[in-house]
């Protein structure tokens, strides 16, 4: 065994390593070129598959909706929040014409998404044309972290074509209380 041989083995490793970049490592150009090409080819295949699967998901999503909720009878119920200073949403339950149809419990992540402007489609239903009554019960934490449970009602008429109903939670700054409003999405 020679001293030089040993030094060279580790020195080579040390220098190769030291030659890497601080934030993002970069291998030796020649050694990595083939591997990079292979990775790139695979990555392009994955990209192409992603596109095809997404397009297929779009078609399936539309098929599912049209099959399960035809436009003529479709009613979609959305939950939204505006500000949310005075209310932390835990759950929403819905009754249509006296019958409970949905009971949704929100995770922190979902409630956070609502607070940032997301709108949640909480329920889809098929309803006959004519008059209907919707009752929504919101539960959560109100001002001073007190348990809060409030209801809101909307009488609406279902005509021909899809209908969208919004269950909106807003802040009433003057009263420092949350407000729950149901309205037809205009």
């Amino acid at each position, binding site marked *: 065994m020679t001293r030089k041989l040993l030094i060279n083995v580790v020195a080579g490793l040390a220098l190769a390593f030291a030659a890497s970049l601080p934030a993002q490592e970069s291998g030796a150009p020649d050694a990595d070129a083939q591997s990079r090409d292979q*990775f790139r080819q695979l990555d392009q295949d994955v990209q192409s598959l992603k596109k095809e699967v997404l397009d297929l998901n779009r078609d399936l999503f539309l098929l599912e909706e049209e099959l399960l909720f035809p436009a003529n009878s479709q009613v979609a119920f959305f939950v939204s929040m505006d500000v949310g200073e005075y209310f932390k949403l835990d759950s929403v339950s819905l009754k249509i014409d006296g019958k409970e149809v949905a009971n949704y419990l929100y995770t922190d992540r979902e409630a956070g998404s609502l607070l940032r402007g997301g709108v949640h489609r909480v329920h889809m239903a098929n309803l006959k044309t004519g008059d209907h009554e919707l009752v929504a019960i919101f539960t959560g934490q109100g001002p001073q972290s007190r348990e809060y449970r409030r209801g809101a009602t909307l009488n609406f008429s279902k005509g021909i074509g899809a209908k969208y109903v919004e269950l909106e939670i807003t802040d009433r700054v003057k009263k420092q209380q949350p407000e729950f409003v149901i309205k037809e999405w205009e």
Partner: protein
Amino acid sequence: MVTARAIVARCCLALAFLAPAAPALAGKDGPAPIVVQEPHYGEILYYFYQEDYFPAIVRVLAAQEQGQLATHAAEAELLKGGLYLSYGHHLEAADIFERLLADNVNPEIRDRTWFFLAKIWRQRGYLDKAQRALDNIGEDLPEDVEREAKMLQAQLLIDGGDYDRAIAMLQDWKGRTEWSRYAQFNLGVALVRSGRVDEAKKILEELGGIDPWNEELTSLRDKANLALGYALLQSGQPHAAKMPLQRVRLEGPFSNKALLGVGWADAELDSYQRALVPWMELRGRDLLDPAVQESMLAIPYALAKLDSISQAADHYVNAVEAFYEESGRIDRTISHIESGRFFDEFLSEDPLDSTGWYWRMQSLPEGPEARYLFHLLATHEFQEGLKNYRDLNYLWSNLDRWQQSVDVYANMLETRRLAFAERLPRVQETLARADIDGMVQRKLEYDALLNDIEQSGDWLALATEREFELWGEITSFEKTPALAADIPEAGEVRDKIRMLKGVLQWGLEKDFQERLWRIRRDLRETGEALVETQRARRQVDDSMNRQPDMFLAFDQRVYGLEPRIETLKMRVGDAMAEQRAFLQSIAVGELQAQQRRLDTYTVQARFALAAIYDRAATVTEAAVK
């Protein structure tokens, strides 16, 4: 929704990839808020904010297909680009950005977008695309991002072997932030790679003496000292090499190599006793590290130099045994990885609750493989490969779920078709019984009759049944023969009858107009109901006629989607196998390199041992003689 939300989507947030990297953008200086005006747009944001990029993209595509994002068309397209990028679908994202970023977009957002695309592309090895993206950046990046973009440019030049331009760029670096230190280091790298080692040494010397203020800079300093120390060792300057090597922290990612180097510097200076100090320190450390492996040979080498032959022989024997055991463990690990179970285990340990470009594997699954592959995690290729593998696995599960759903939809369609076929004759029979045309005819006859009654003022025609009976009774009384007698009693009855008749007629005439109006109203309502019935009937007829076509259209969609799912599932499965093979080849290649190094060390140890035995035999032989 027309009311303005206080919490609304911001245009810049549409560029999903900017959110974690540039939270300041969401602050008061960000672009003007956008009011969510369509529920479907809000729904996309709902998934986007939860970082569920795949369902968010599906909803954008579906909503766009159905024209449900008309008022958010521009934001939705930009959001889609951001979602694609966050999901790691960078080629599709770039297509969108290339279309949208040309105009109508805040210049800072445009520049940031190109910067992040460049960053992703470099990580994924698309160096040409990364360069084009950097070329698109204008002058609107914030200062910190601009520095990072400049560094990225230098890295791309180094990647492409254009060291001179990289050196020129890095030498010109201004400012005293930590980026300037990175620039200094990369300058050293570029100088080393272009063969200008002496210049590199100066740079590394300066960097090795900095007073770091955070962990990253401390690590950078260690790295610079290590590189400098070994460069000096290689150029035969062991004394000078010791100082930078001793500046490396005793505990850190570079400490083992530094300790080994310090030992070699002493050995070069013939101070074997001193060399043993750092090498002995290495003995208790992880044998996976090449520096530790090499120290196992360096120690007996020094002992032999110090004439501790017997101790040296013992250490060589120990080293050979340790290398043999380690090599065996690596063999077993390679077999396990090649069996394909390793990557499935790591998928099962890391549920696919999220996918996308931001995901990073923080730790490998537990097991003997983890310790060998730990540092692979630091490489872009392995991380990006793992991301793709995860994404493919997600796609496969997604397709598998849809495959089951489509089966259900096919059954549902069949059930509906059967129910339709069963009900159709009954409905047709009922409809045939309902003589709507006859009803319309009768309504028209009533209209005509009412007109006659009105024109003739036939108040009796509008009498109720009871009134009509009364009228009949009264008129029949009038015709009673006895009443014709000329006697006072008969006259009195006639008067009464006349009075009754008059009262009845007066009432009927009085109510005539009102009754006429009420009957006309009822007839009009009946007419409207008949029109509605005719319309409904047409709808029913139309629906009955169209239903078979609708079933056929749904059939075609359902049965057309089934093979698409199946084909894609197979292709995703194949791609997973290829991706796994690629990751396996990286991992196995890494392990084989470790094994080769161990083999080299084993051979060296055996030779050294043989030399020692030889020397001992010669000495004994000489003594006997």
